[in-house]
């Protein structure tokens, strides 16, 4: 048990996998010499060499598809797509090849590839660089989707993703790379497929994942000041979604706020709302609230970007609304 940054956790897990399994290799834009756009793979090239740590040209569709092909060929590729924004350029490869090959071949082939991408806004990099598309990936049959909201999960999810025989998309939150937290490599668990209660509560359930987890935990603290005991559920796996855990917390608190950085319309939060309605309708004492990203291409100025994204205050207010409204 030690403390490490979210960035170090991802790197440590990749290093372990690269050392333990010769089939594992890392490829992506500037993962080698540069050390990774967010310094996640820093030092790996020096340690493992250019055959295992591969800098790619700017060809998202080409190298992500090559990762899929290499997986077909018996390797266990880790493909880093610098950010989710650029993943639109390789979405066809992920949706039409990675996600469909097992099915279209009648189960004869599988694609054990781990595709990592940084996601989220909050760094004032404007509209084209601030998207969150976790909701899109989470809607594709044939894929599995993970979102790391803690340092330990950042470590465990890399290893779990590599263990899986099917394509796994792992979302790392750009603004969390510097976050410090506890990391226990020994106690590492591959069960990253179930939601986790990050804070016990009884008055309202705050359901979130990845980028919004720290903000939601802050919101829970704000609520505590007002004597409101919020439960915080971290979804962790976005596909499959842990419906039971969602029903469990809603059945306990009877009120829910879904916090999610994707654009509100069509957000992942919408799917959670739908599942609550389908599976816990009679447990609800108030309408479910969503705190998502405002529907605007993310503006560059800080005050506008902050206003566009979920924030602890907005989350706390939403929670209070669910408590004010009678059952």
């Amino acid at each position, binding site marked *: 048990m030690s403390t490490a940054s979210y960035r170090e956790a991802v790197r440590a897990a990749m290093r372990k996998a690269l050392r333990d399994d010769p089939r594992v*290799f890392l490829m992506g834009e500037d993962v080698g010499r540069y050390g990774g756009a967010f310094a996640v793979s820093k030092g790996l090239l020096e340690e493992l060499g250019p*055959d295992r740590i*591969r800098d*790619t*040209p700017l*060809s998202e*569709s*080409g*190298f*992500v*598809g*090559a*990762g*899929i*092909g*290499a*997986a*077909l*060929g*018996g*390797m266990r*590729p880790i493909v880093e797509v610098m950010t989710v924004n650029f993943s639109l350029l390789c979405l*066809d*490869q992920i949706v*039409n*090849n990675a996600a469909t*090959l*097992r*099915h*279209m*071949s*009648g*189960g*004869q*082939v*599988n694609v054990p590839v781990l595709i990592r991408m940084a996601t989220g806004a909050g760094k004032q990099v404007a509209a084209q660089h601030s998207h969150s598309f976790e909701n899109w990936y989470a809607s594709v*049959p*044939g894929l*599995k989707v993970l979102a790391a909201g803690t340092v330990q999960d950042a470590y465990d999810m890399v290893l*779990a993703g590599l*263990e*899986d*025989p*099917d394509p796994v998309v792992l979302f790392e939150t750009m603004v969390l790379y510097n976050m410090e937290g506890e990391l226990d490599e020994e106690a590492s668990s*591959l069960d990253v*497929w*179930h939601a986790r209660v990050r804070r016990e509560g009884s008055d309202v359930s705050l359901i979130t994942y990845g980028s919004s987890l720290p903000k939601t935990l802050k919101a829970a603290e704000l609520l505590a000041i007002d004597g409101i005991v919020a439960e915080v559920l971290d979804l962790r*796996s976005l596909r*499959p979604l842990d419906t039971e855990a969602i029903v469990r917390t809603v059945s306990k608190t009877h009120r829910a706020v879904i916090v999610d950085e994707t654009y509100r319309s069509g957000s992942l939060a919408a799917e959670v709302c739908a599942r609550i309605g389908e599976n816990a309708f009679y447990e609800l004492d108030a309408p479910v609230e969503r705190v998502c990203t405002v529907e605007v291409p993310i503006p560059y100025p800080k005050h506008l970007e902050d206003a566009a994204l979920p924030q602890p205050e907005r989350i706390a207010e939403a929670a209070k609304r669910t408590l004010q409204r009678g059952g």
Partner: protein
Amino acid sequence: MGLTRDHALELLHQMVRIRRLEEKAAELYSAGKIRGFLHLYIGEEAVAVGAMSALRPDEAVVATYREHGHALVRGLSATAVLAEMYGKVSGCSRGRGGSMHFFCPEARFYGGNAIVGGGFPLAVGLALADKMQGRRRVTACFFGDGATDEGEFCESMNLAALWKLPVLFLCENNQYSMGTALARHAADVELTHRPMAFGIPAEKVDGMDVVAVERAVRYEAESVREQGTPRFLEMVTYRYRAHSMYDAELYRDKAEVAEWKERDPIALFVARATEAELIEDADVDAIEQEVAAEVARAVEEAEAAEWETLEDLTRNVVAREVP
């Protein structure tokens, strides 16, 4: 012609298998037994037959939605292929893929890809896996002239050349990207210029001449194995049928089709092989009979085969929902 009688008979046999099986498939489509898209290879048989006979059994093949011929020559049975077109469980993809998605890992046949250009990166990745695992073998990537306009083509060539990967790019230039003639979709109709821009050696061969194709592919494949670097071969051919089953063919005139039919790869080969006294009319008859029987059997077996049950609808999406 520089080939043995046995090999001549084998080449002819394979071309006839493709031709007759696809003619039957067209019939079955009209009869409603086969549905969806059905892209026939008729007219292009010399390409798949010549190329496949130059590849080793353990070398990976990536093809397109026009892959019936490639699969047959690669060793998939007429029954497995036809049953797949029917959508039966006994099909080469358990019926899930249909005509455009044949798979057979044993034959290292990786589809059957229906997104134009989608197979390029897969081929690059398969070759990368071979290289990283120290295997000296080719990954053969078949694609059409139209596919060379997709960005993935250039991205994949750059990657294959930059990383020195043993990919053999096999371009089936049948003059049309669906209804768009080469000169109306490619700014420079000399497609070999594209790979050259990435330092990839590129050659061109008459795709209606099975012997020429085999010779060329044998040379290219051997070079790829030896040097471990990518190469490109354009095979000039022609599609006799519609792009898919229904197609008014407003984009080309009968005369053009007729002209190309005079160079029918099968007739051309029969004439030459006969002239070279490698085969006789009796051989052709024997092959036709054998193939007719094989096709008839395949139809029977496909007809008799089972449908997958509805209970299995969501089977083979992922290995296990939650590990």
